């Protein structure tokens, strides 16, 4: 939200484009790295804070001329506090995550026309003594610009990739549109993993509501209160993952003949649905359009008081499609005949991880020397198979 706000608001965008360290946090505008002199004449950097007057999702004319400061009180070269802006001193939590130390008041006759004018006016007053001592001190540090945060799908930086030095490889997912059809156990774990890549959009298709048993075979830990409201799964996961990233698109519907055409501009599709019969139009549409997809499924059985399971990951790619109907059941008849719909979180999670891993191979993130388009894992004999090579 904060990046879109900055992009859409000309005054905030101008601040950022000129190199100011602009941050939107808890409905406040923060400009970090403002140079000033403290009472002993030492150059420091502090943060100028303003509340935000909004008109919908862009800034409006500032409603208040007052501003706040995180740091020591800015002083003149002689060590006296700058009285032109002085208003009050004392710790004041403007928001749970914003604690300011001083408040300033400097009111032009006609107020401030916009936040660019407001912030640069205060910055000029605050920084003037410091710049008089050292002209190289500037608030235009370009610090956040370097992070190219503004065009990231993430609401905070993917420091995992940057720490590991695999940013360039992670960028292979950038801009992709993904659809996950079905948000049962495997679909929800698939979302969890795909959400942590730089894909542009993740379209979620499911009509079911989140019920108590779902909590035990899906990622994270919904509260009792959340479960009481029985939210649609797509809404639940939209809110859960929108804390971290943009581009989650909920579709509270199943995919059938009436809406399967919506998949036409998707780059990769994960099919994570139980009913075989609904897969026919999806597979036909995707293969006709040349869209790669990965279909997952498992069977879990009890023998005495122990379980065994086989997981399956079937891939249809631009290179190979002809095996798909030998691997994916399109029938509903086999549904309840022998299996009791046993599902276990770790099996859902592994099936999802295997599907996502294969997708990352299709994206050339992981090396793929096998090029298998069907893979299974059977727990009881610890057997991985890989067949239908392209």
């Amino acid at each position, binding site marked *: 939200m904060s990046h879109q706000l900055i992009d859409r608001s000309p005054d905030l965008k101008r601040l950022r484009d000129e190199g100011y360290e602009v941050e939107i946090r808890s409905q406040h505008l923060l400009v970090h790295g403002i140079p000033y002199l403290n009472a002993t004449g030492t150059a420091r950097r502090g943060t100028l804070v303003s509340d935000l007057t909004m008109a919908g999702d862009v800034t409006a004319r500032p409603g208040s001329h007052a501003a706040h400061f995180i740091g020591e009180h800015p002083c003149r070269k002689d060590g006296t506090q700058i009285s032109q802006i002085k208003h009050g001193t004392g710790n004041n939590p403007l928001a749970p995550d914003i604690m300011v130390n001083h408040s300033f008041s400097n009111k032009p006759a006609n107020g401030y026309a916009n936040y660019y004018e407001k912030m640069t006016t205060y910055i000029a007053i605050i920084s003037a003594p410091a710049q008089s001592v050292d002209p190289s001190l500037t608030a235009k540090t370009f610090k956040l610009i370097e992070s190219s945060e503004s065009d990231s799908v993430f609401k905070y930086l993917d420091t995992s990739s940057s720490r590991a030095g695999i940013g360039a490889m992670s960028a292979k997912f950038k801009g992709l549109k993904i659809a996950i059809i*079905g948000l*049962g*156990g*495997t*679909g929800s774990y698939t979302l969890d993993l795909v959400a942590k890549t730089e894909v542009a959009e993740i379209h979620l298709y499911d009509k079911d509501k989140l019920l108590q048993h779902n909590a035990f075979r899906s990622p994270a830990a919904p509260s009792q209160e959340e479960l009481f409201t029985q939210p649609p799964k797509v809404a639940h996961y939209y809110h859960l993952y929108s804390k971290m990233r943009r581009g989650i698109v909920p579709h509270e519907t199943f995919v059938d003949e009436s809406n399967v055409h919506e998949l036409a501009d998707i780059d990769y599709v994960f099919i*994570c*649905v*139980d*009913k*075989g*019969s609904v897969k026919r139009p999806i597979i036909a549409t995707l293969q006709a359009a040349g869209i790669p997809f990965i279909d*997952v*499924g*498992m*069977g*879990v*059985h009890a*023998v005495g008081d122990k379980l*065994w*399971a*086989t*997981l*399956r990951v079937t891939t249809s790619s631009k290179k190979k499609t002809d*095996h798909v109907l*030998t*691997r*994916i*059941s*399109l*029938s509903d*008849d*086999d*549904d309840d*005949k*022998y*299996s009791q*719909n*046993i*599902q276990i979180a770790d099996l*859902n999670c592994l*099936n999802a991880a295997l599907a996502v891993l294969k997708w990352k191979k299709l994206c050339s993130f992981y090396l793929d020397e096998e090029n298998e388009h*069907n893979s*299974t894992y*059977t727990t*009881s*004999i610890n*057997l991985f*198979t890989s*067949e239908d090579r392209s």
Partner: protein
Amino acid sequence: MKSEMHSPDQQADSAGAAAHGGNTDQAHEYEIVVNARQVDVSKGTLSYIEVVRLAFEHPVIDENTIYTVAYKRGHGDKPEGTMVDGDTVKIKNGMIFYVTPTNRS
């Protein structure tokens, strides 16, 4: 557990299979495991549908219904893998099959 019980037989059979030169011996009884149950079969080769029928008493056999068949400890040229409709596999003592619909997600 069961597979470990069979490992001496499995070794004995490896020699036997070599002596037969891979011919299917209709008289020979093979002890295999299907879905964790021990099964005796008299054929040296099994088809996908035959394996499915060993796994389930009344399987759904039609063109839309697909079972995932995985096996391990088979013959040396392809000791493990999966089977689809139309496939056959050479049988060996101690061979293990797991058969299930894989339609749950």
